[in-house]
């Protein structure tokens, strides 16, 4: 890598380009899959790609590079000049912070045979859970090590390293002609006990076999923590200063966006956080920010204050986040259900990427969950939609759970508790047995 930076920098100088800033992403990953007691899928990934910003006569040019051949340097220089002219914005210089390098240099994945054994045991635990379990699907473990290196071309570099993984598994349950599936993904820093997670997945699939119709109504509901994470992820761009300035978000600091118990942080050093970062993708040191407290919007996310992140190696940095935390309350999920008494527990939603719009706050999503009577989980409901406005929903929160769900995506990680809301608009097939 150093060799590439040195040779590219020297050639760029000769070509008349000014200061260069390198963002280099090295990813090593392994994906292992098991089916019917044997390893049926194995994937190794190795990526080393660069995103380079250059000072082109005072303007900023940028390119991404996956092919390091010097024969392509001229093409890269031409692209840098073209992007600088098209963007027509001043070059943004960067003073990299002084940080020590992370310790481990090489990814240390679990031994492959151990991963295979653990996945096989998880699959078996799922299959043995209940006689109505038909099969396990997508029983897979992904492990990764991502290293972000920034270099300013003058020899100074700074590094962040992220290691972790995720366990995916699906259960298919069948009773008579009715088949139901439950898909789960668990992101982690250290690989957890997989069989317990597999059993939870199996229980989810079996639980869906006892169904009840769900008429259209406005009802009290408890949103599972994972559902809250997904919704928060969809609406987070409304908290970006740039979107407000460009009239794509109506949020303004000082406005009420939830009940007083709502507190939301962007915390790049969150203990146990899956996406902790010491500097952003423009080399600016990251800091913890309080977005919402007491239900009031306190601040928004800015690119210039350590929240410039790339959605992938090819993209230019834009406003983003590291770890978003909606702070938990005190009640367990069971206590939330008891407090609600009658209503719905929403355990999953789909189609969030299309059915939730950050600019309007509106969402309309297919959902699944359970009927709740006397505070207890009863029959499952599916083929329903939930809809409303996310920010209005946060003003209808009666209580927050003490549980924390996690949602990891390429942009960052979100953690949020289950929420008990007093009114949620639900559409279902009235009177039709499902």
């Amino acid at each position, binding site marked *: 890598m150093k060799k590439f930076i040195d040779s590219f920098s020297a050639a760029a100088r000769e070509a008349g380009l000014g200061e260069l800033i390198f963002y280099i992403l090295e990813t090593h990953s392994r994906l292992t899959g098991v089916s019917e007691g044997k390893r049926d899928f194995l*994937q*190794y990934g190795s990526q*080393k790609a660069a995103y380079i910003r250059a000072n082109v006569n005072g303007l900023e040019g940028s390119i991404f590079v996956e092919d390091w051949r010097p024969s392509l340097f001229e093409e890269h220089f031409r692209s840098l000049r*073209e*992007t600088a002219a098209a963007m027509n914005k001043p070059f943004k210089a960067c003073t990299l912070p002084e940080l020590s390098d992370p310790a481990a240099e090489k990814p240390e994945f679990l031994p492959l045979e151990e991963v295979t054994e653990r996945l096989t045991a998880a699959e078996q635990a799922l299959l043995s859970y209940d006689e109505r379990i038909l099969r396990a*699907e997508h029983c897979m473990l992904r492990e990764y090590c991502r290293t972000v290196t920034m270099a300013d071309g003058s020899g100074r570099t700074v590094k962040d390293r992220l290691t972790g993984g995720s366990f995916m598994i699906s259960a298919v349950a069948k009773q008579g002609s009715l088949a139901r599936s439950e898909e789960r993904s668990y992101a982690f820093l250290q690989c957890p006990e997989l069989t317990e997670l597999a059993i939870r997945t199996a229980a989810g699939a079996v639980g869906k076999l006892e169904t009840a119709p769900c008429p259209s109504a406005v009802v009290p509901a408890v949103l599972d923590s994972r559902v809250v994470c997904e919704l928060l992820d969809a609406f987070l761009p409304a908290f970006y200063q740039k979107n407000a300035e*460009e009239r794509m978000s109506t949020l303004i600091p000082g406005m009420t966006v939830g009940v007083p118990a709502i507190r939301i942080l962007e915390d790049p050093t969150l203990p146990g956080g899956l996406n902790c970062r010491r500097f952003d993708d423009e080399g600016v040191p990251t800091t913890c920010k309080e977005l919402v407290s007491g239900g009031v919007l306190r601040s928004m996310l800015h690119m210039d204050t350590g929240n410039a992140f790339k959605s992938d190696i090819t993209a230019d940095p834009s406003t983003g986040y590291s770890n978003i935390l909606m702070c938990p309350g005190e009640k367990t999920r069971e206590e939330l259900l008891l407090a609600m008494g009658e209503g719905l527990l929403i355990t999953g939603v789909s*189609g969030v990427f299309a059915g939730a719009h950050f600019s309007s706050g509106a969402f309309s999503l297919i959902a699944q969950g359970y009927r709740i009577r006397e505070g207890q989980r009863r029959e499952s409901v599916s083929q329903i939609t939930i809809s409303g406005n996310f920010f209005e929903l946060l003003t209808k929160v009666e209580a927050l759970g003490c549980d924390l769900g996690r949602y990891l995506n390429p942009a960052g990680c979100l953690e949020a508790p289950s929420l008990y809301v007093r009114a949620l608009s639900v*559409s*279902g097939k009235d009177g039709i047995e499902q």
Partner: protein
Amino acid sequence: MILSTATIDRILDAAYAGDADFAEVFCEEDRQLVLRAKVSGTDGISAGLVSGVGIRVLSGDTCRYAYADGGNEETLLKLARQLASPGAPAVPRRPLGTPVSYGVQYLPEPDRMKAALTGARRAVDAGMAFSGEVTQVVARLVNSERQILVANTEGLLAEDCRRKTRLQISAYAGFGGQLQYGYSGPGAMGGLDYLDGLDIEAHARHAAEAAVTAVHAGPCPGGTMTVVVGNGFGGLMFHEACGHSLEASSVAKGNSEFSGKLGQQVASPLVTLIDDGTVPGQWGSMGMDDEGTPAQRNVLIEKGILKCYMADRFGGRLMGAASTGSGRRQNYRFPPEARMTNTFIAAGESTPEEIIAATERGLYVGNIFGGSVNPLTGDFNFNVLECRLIENGRLGAPVRGTTLIGSGGEILSQVDMVGNDLSLGQGYCYNNSGALFIGAGQPTVRVNNILVGGER
């Protein structure tokens, strides 16, 4: 291309060992340009070269895959050896044959950046000029010049050149403290000269009008109703409702509601569903798939009868069928899977006006934004835009976007009118083998008993 034939030979030799019965090398070079323009000017540019290699080894019903960017032979040979098992393969591999080329070889386009920038700016200007209520227009121009090469142990050596251009226009409108959204996203298999023949201003005005209409619209009523879905990208309804359930990855393991139903009536006799990767100039078209099999036209459902599934090599192997030219992947970082190309419902005989006039009450859907499906249950959902109520056979008041849900099997049998105005729209499809360019189309179609997720 980043690898020579000699290097590919060495990688295949290293990977094809022991229990392997098939090995493949996939090389890719993709010169990408993504440019984003807003009212304030050019908002962002992403330009560069995606370049890498994927190596796949099949052994019976198992798949092993490795990828690396760049074309470093040492790295690739190391990965190939990681995938290999000890010993010699049971059957020696065939030498690589004469290269087969698909697509049109091209030279890098001159003034690529200027053409992209001009097109995006025109969209922003036209969208903003539509109404004072338009608060922002974002034009995202995507241009890709992609060359792929596939070589395998059966002697195949094939390459394809794909050029794609798309202009995605998002308009935002504000009124009474609310913001709403409108969209148009035309695209094609072609270079930036595609923009020369495109009425950019009309697409921008369409997106702006949709946003302005939505910001004044009332909430959509919820419940089960008759839905008329307009032509074009409305075809995404069938992409979600049954297309994914006809892909080998779902069918092979019995994970599809359509598994084992070949030859059976699965839809209304009015429904003929086609997946066609050969439509000239279409966004979802290609010369060959990402396994080197020529793209083809597959009639999936004909007059309601299930005729075939979509298969890639591995999925086809698992269900005892040949590839249908459907093996696709986003890039070298994904092993291929059976995926759709351009999927559409064939034209019927009714005019769109006749369909609306024949509908006493219901919902008209002008555009579809996106959706997803659980192939096992067939439960699908998709978010719709540009909606109006239908009252007494006429288009009535606009209502804000909503979500339609249902089950694929149900919806196919509930189609009772098909229009004569077939057209295709453009979009992306996300699944295990990544984000793919797809076409989705239909004529105006009427479906009974769809559950509409409304707020009132």
